[in-house]
């Protein structure tokens, strides 16, 4: 009955070839927590499934010289959450990845998959935008890199060309005095898609913000890098005025829709609320105080 091919190549090159051969009907299988659901609902009808979990480069976390990390695109959230150095350096990115679905989903779902699914509400993406992550892509014409904020192009769409796959995600070494945080608003405490998600990465020197990046999700067709919010924070000691200015920038950046998960008004308001809260957590982390993550 089935005409679908399942392939589990051992190298990037083979995976790229398989995707190329599938001619637009090929889908990469990492954790599969989106793909299997989409196949079942009929939203995606692959002819070739390329399981990338036998490719070492895609399933390992590598520490880079200087303090950065390269995370294989198919590494599961559970494995990422257990990597102590990664958690210490990028608590916001890790908590964002660890908020994707249940513990069961965490056992499979990857940051690479979350990115490639290209939902505007993807939890990991705002945090990765804030952390300045770059995406390593391999394709028929070799390798290339794009900043994570340039990767999604529309709901469910991204910049991958035919035959291309995401290999890994590079987290640049954080400057001294840096940390990050991710917060999302969901109606329950777990198992929901973000109504708004926000990642904030800050560098502090003597209590003053010297660098900042803000990633904002679920309020526009793609996750946004909100540069005006970052600008409002830089140079401040996160006083109320600076936070309000940054929150206003987030609200101004929102181009949300009304849907089953939230209204335009609510999403817009919450983007500002979460900006303030996430910035405070990131700042406390950056100044060495331990702040519990959020669920």
């Amino acid at each position, binding site marked *: 009955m089935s005409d679908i091919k399942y392939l589990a190549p051992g190298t990037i090159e083979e995976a790229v070839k398989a995707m190329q051969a599938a001619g637009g009907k090929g889908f990469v299988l990492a954790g599969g927590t989106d793909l299997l659901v989409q196949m079942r609902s009929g939203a995606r009808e692959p002819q070739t499934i390329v399981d990338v979990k036998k490719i070492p480069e895609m399933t390992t976390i590598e520490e880079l010289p200087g303090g950065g990390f390269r995370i294989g695109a198919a590494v599961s959230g559970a494995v990422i959450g257990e990597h102590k150095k990664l958690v210490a350096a990028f608590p916001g990115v890790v908590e964002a990845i660890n908020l994707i679905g249940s513990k069961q989903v965490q056992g499979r779902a990857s940051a690479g998959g979350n990115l490639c699914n290209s939902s505007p509400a993807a939890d990991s993406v705002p945090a990765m935008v804030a952390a300045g992550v770059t995406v390593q892509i391999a394709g028929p014409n070799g390798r290339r890199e794009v900043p994570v904020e340039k990767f999604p192009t529309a709901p469910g769409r991204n910049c991958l060309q035919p035959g291309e796959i995401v290999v890994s995600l590079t987290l640049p070494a954080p400057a001294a005095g840096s940390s990050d945080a991710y917060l999302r608003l969901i109606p329950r405490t777990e198992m929901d898609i973000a109504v708004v998600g926000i990642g904030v990465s800050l560098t502090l020197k003597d209590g003053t913000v010297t660098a900042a990046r803000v990633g904002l999700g679920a309020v526009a067709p793609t996750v946004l890098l909100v540069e005006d919010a970052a600008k409002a924070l830089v140079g401040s000691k996160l006083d109320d005025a600076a936070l309000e200015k940054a929150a206003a920038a987030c609200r101004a950046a929102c181009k949300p829709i009304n849907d089953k998960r939230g209204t335009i008004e*609510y999403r817009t308001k919450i983007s500002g609320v979460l900006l303030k809260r996430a910035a405070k957590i990131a700042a406390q982390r950056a100044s060495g105080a331990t702040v519990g993550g959020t669920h």
Partner: protein
Amino acid sequence: MTAQVYKWIGTRPKRPDGADKVTGRARFGADFNMPGQLIGRVLRSPHPHAVIKSIDTSAAAALPGVRAVVTAADFPEQENLIVPAGEMQVNLRDVTRTIMAREKVLYEGHPVAAVAAASEAIAKQALALIKVEYALLPHVIDVEEAMKDGAPILHDHIRTDGVQPVPTKPSNIAKRIENLKGDVAKGFAEAEVVIERKYTTAPVHQAYIEPHACLASAAEDGQVSVWTTTQGHFQVRGFCSRLLQIETSQIRVTPSEIGGGFGGKTVVYLEPVAIRLSQKSGKPVKMVMTREEVFRASGPAPGGAMTVKIGAKKDGRIVAADITIALQAGAFPGSPIGPACWCSMACYDVDNIRVVGFDVVSNRPKVAAYRAPGAPISSFAVESTIDILAQELGMDPIDLRLKNAAMKGTKTHYGPVFDRIGLVECLEAAKNSAHYKSPVKPGHARGIAAGFWFNVGADSSAAAHVGEDGTVTVISGNPDIGGSRASLALMAAEELGVDYDKVRAVIADTHSIGFNFVTGGSRVTFATGMAVVNATKDAIKELRVRAAKIWGVDPEGVVWEGGKARPAGHNVGEFEPLTLAQIAAQAGKTGGPINGHAQLNAQGAGPGFGVHIADVRVDAETGHVVIDRYTAVQDVGTAIHPSYVEGQLQGGAVQGIGWALNEEYIYNAKGHLDNAGFLDYRIPVASDLPMIETILVEVPNPHHPYGVRGVGEVPIVPPLATIANAVARACGTRMTSLPISPPRLSAALDAAPKLAAE
């Protein structure tokens, strides 16, 4: 707390189906398979309202591997006849249109055709080959919209029942009912405080974790076997018999273990279709709904729109209530509007009450029972209003309820006079609880509400079979949803005076025990429990006869005490007591097998009352509500197996919490359900909740041998208002519309006039 001293009643032994259910061995609906079975799938309407102009199944039937195709033409037309379905009532004319649309489709997901094929993949391909021509009609979902003049009319034959003169034009209002007690106008004239508010609740789903599933095998001689997940296999038999014109003796329905029902599995969806497909194909046919199908085409409970006006004296004495309730029935008439009206004011002894109810059809699936059907909706409105009254009067909300509480002798607004009930005891237990006496934490607020459900009795049959070794099998016919086997075995053991582990409770198929009404209405431990007690008594009577034979005395001279036959007195003679095992061992010589039987229509179900307490805090910026502490107090009559009684209270409370906070059917402008999955139909998850403390108040029901009252439904009634009342006290904004989801509460907080800074 139980006044009488029992050996087994009130203990917490292991349930007999425990090991099967923790090992994966227990067989639920989708776990039954037969050699050579086909897979059945249903083609469903993509439109909320349309005329079916034609259906062409020829291409599907011609697909290799397809063995049968059915449409409405394969099911006989049914008469206009109302029959019971669980706690609700359904019209057979509508039931056949629910299992397969006839002239029109009336909701997205309405079945239009079905196929049976060699595999699921072929069945799905076949569905895609069925061509249905629709003529689209305008649709209406919301209950208030559906009541308006000019709303799209679902059924041309409906003239609002209960209205004089009889209307000449069709309407979506299928029925108007009115309960009247006293003189409402006079009551309000005496009132010193009058509160009036309008409320709405969203439609919700029972959201049992196990989807509907069945397997049907029709033999060439007309005999049919069905395995299915249901709350009532006798009802499945009854519906299939009528819908397919097969005699009941020809249909044997075996219930699987059931993965939750909450009222939603008291009706039929798949079974008649599977039987028909099996008849046409000559093969067994298995059908399992997807989760999406469960949401789109089974179960749901209505949404409601209500106004409540309550008048009271300044001392808190309520003098009048005027209530209007409109409920969505779904595609066909038959919402639980009656119970909604009756339960609305049942907690209160008030002289002047008028309750008017409307049963309204709209383009969504026909509603099914959901745990105390209708009561949570009307109770939300009334209990919210009572809370506003308490705030207005500056009274403690429990004291206000105590002042007006119904008790023995209270005449309800819908007719009956209460016998011994335990509302006052529940209110007092709540007031004296550690929870209520504890200080409210800073930033938190406390809400309370009361709730009522009738509980039902109805038909049950049971048998008690004594084995050769003196152990006993108790046989009845109600699927065990939450531990009822254990409760039935406990009552039989108590009655027999033997150890619990000498009694095994089993659930028989429709051919192996007499009729049993559904597992629903909180009736099993009460009514089937009574049948089990009677069957056990019947067996004991026979045991006494056998002992008398062994001793050569008159049976009247033998009593049954402590699990043994004993001489009734010295004048009978001196005999060593005979144990069950000793009598059983000699059964062959004394008259053959020893069994007991009973059948009854149980009367006197004890009404149930509960009071819930919640402490919440509200994130004022996001509208997120966190429940910090929760207590459910309930009069349970006698707790036969307290752990499972507590479980009913806890589970019911959490379903009510879900109803209050996040659960809702979300329809888009096209009339399509937008959240047909567990991702966006948000039932509570473990991390949303605190422990649910329980206080079991035991006011024995005088009409049951062990004082049992139904316990399963009451606990879903109070939580909606309990949460709303706590939220109102936490943030000063009263939510009169459910759910109190973060976007809605946030919008309400933003819209509320800002209070002066404190």
